[in-house]
């Protein structure tokens, strides 16, 4: 056993506080009235307006059309997150499967071409992407929001590395057992990839959840607004002497944190279980 060193603990505690305080502050401040926040600054203690603020944020209609509720935005963000995670996993698994198991010319070249797209993030190609979507009349649709960003070099790379680590004999045994390419993929590779899928799900869900620029560009129809846009629009109402609804912004921010945290907690457990369970 190592001796407990007070200095180490102090550093760790300070680090934890540094990371946690803003979150706690957001949570606590969201339970105070906007006017209190405006005059007193942020709070570290719970206030008395919590229930009221959260109900309002989730259900009250806002926006120009007066149709947008927090719940709707939450749903939209959820669709984005899940769509990204599931779509990216499906697509990159299939791409990696083709790259690893099918012998075709230039497979390596194609792989590096896919890999090179990592150097071209969305922000660089956002105008052409927008134009393509607009010409396909996919603005203001979930398809337009999700599909253009589904191709994932990261995912393809991870799955490729994973598939290469699967012993060849497994494929050969499956071939003798009469499993064709599709059956082998579904019956053997997919179940074996569970931990990999959990890891990528976490990353991609959060990536999708946090999208801001692309939805901002792609959607003008308010019924497609996501939480990330919602928070922004609350703080934009600097009209006259009105005080921005700080409390509501904080509440939305807290709500926006819940699903990613849940995803991490749920899938991390699976992820670790998978890691410790599969020794072969």
């Amino acid at each position: 056993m190592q001796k407990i060193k007070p200095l180490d603990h102090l550093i760790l505690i300070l680090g934890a506080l540094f990371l946690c305080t803003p979150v706690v502050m957001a949570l606590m401040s969201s339970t105070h009235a906007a006017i209190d926040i405006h005059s007193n600054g942020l709070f570290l203690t719970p206030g008395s307006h919590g229930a009221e603020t959260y109900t309002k944020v989730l259900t009250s209609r806002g926006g120009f059309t007066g149709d947008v509720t927090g719940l709707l935005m939450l749903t939209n963000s959820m669709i984005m997150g899940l769509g990204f995670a599931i779509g990216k996993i499906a697509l990159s698994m299939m791409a990696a499967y083709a790259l690893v198991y099918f012998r075709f010319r230039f497979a390596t070249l194609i792989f590096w071409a896919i890999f090179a797209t990592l150097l071209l993030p969305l922000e660089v190609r956002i105008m052409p992407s927008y134009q393509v979507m607009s010409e396909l009349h996919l603005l203001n649709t979930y398809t337009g929001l999700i599909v253009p960003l589904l191709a994932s070099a990261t995912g393809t790379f991870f799955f490729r590395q994973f598939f290469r680590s699967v012993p060849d004999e497994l494929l050969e045994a499956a071939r003798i057992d009469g499993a064709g390419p599709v059956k082998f993929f579904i019956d053997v590779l997919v179940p074996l990839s569970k931990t990999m899928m959990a890891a990528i799900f976490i990353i991609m869900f959060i990536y999708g959840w946090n999208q801001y620029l692309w939805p901002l560009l792609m959607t003008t129809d308010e019924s497609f607004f996501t939480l990330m846009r919602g928070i922004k629009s609350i703080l934009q109402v600097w009209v006259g002497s009105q005080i921005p609804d700080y409390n509501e912004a904080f509440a939305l921010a807290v709500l926006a944190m819940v699903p990613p945290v849940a995803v991490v907690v749920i899938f991390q457990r699976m992820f670790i279980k998978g890691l410790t369970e599969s020794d072969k």
Partner: protein
Amino acid sequence: MAHLSLTNVGKTYGGSAQAAVADVNIEIKDGEFIVLVGPSGCGKSTLLRMVAGLETISQGEIRIGERLVNQLDPAERDIAMVFQNYALYPHMSVRDNMAYGLKNRGESKAVIEERVAEAARMLELRPYLDRKPRALSGGQRQRVAMGRAIVRQPSAFLFDEPLSNLDAKLRVSMRMEIRKLQRRLGTTSLYVTHDQLEAMTLADRLVVLNGGRVEQIGAPLEVYRAPASTFVASFIGAPAMCLLDAQVENGTVMLEGHALAPVAQAAGPVTLGLRAEDLRITPGGVPMRVDHIEELGAQRIVHGYVGDQALAMIDTSEAPLPETVHLGVAPARVHLFDAQSGRRIEAAAQPVAVPAE
């Protein structure tokens, strides 16, 4: 159950100039247990995998039963294979591992259940049917792999070094189990190993491969008693047969100027093969300087030199040995090989079928 025939089978891997397997002709009878044996890299696995359909066949024909299988998929060849690393599906239970092939073939649930139960009974796997492979020991995993082969009731079993990953003791007992099982099922089997002892104990007939070519095909004792070449001679039997440069003069084989045994062979240089277990200490024999002794308990292996050529003999006495021992050998146990080609000179020893004693 079927016979298996390989005709002029050859394989050249893409990008390699040299054939990995060439000109292999083997006729395997129904129910026979054939062991392919040879050093690492001699093409054993390649040959087996061609039979399995996992490698394309560059030359020649492979027939299973009467069917030419060159162009068939592995699943259509009606064979089952056991791999060195077991190749069990890690995420499936033992039961599912065994049932997977049958399910894909579209067998009915009842048939699958019955066959799995039967295989589990035979292999004593019943308590483990619901476990995942990772919760099994190496020996149990290998038995599951065999179970997976058995339930298919194939025309032929193919084994690729199935025991190499097991510890020595388990290897011996599994060897016996495989043999018993094969006898009982009567399924034609092709078994690959680099271990000559495994080959000797398992095979109905051995196929000794060297550099992708067949050196000799024969029953284990036939191969042991009359190795067709210096390669086979040094590969089969432990300790390995000693190969020495010798001369035939006047119908006698001379080793470093000492007469060893009479042979019916024209005068000239030969390669002389002597097995350690055939040499006896005899007064007036060929003198060997003792170098070191390996004590094995029941016997000891005496290593030494005749002139500057290394030789080994097995001695079963416990008496201390002098610095020089004199060795003799029964003429029937003298193996002569062509000094250039290394092929066996047939007239050398007396008829092999009658073991001389």
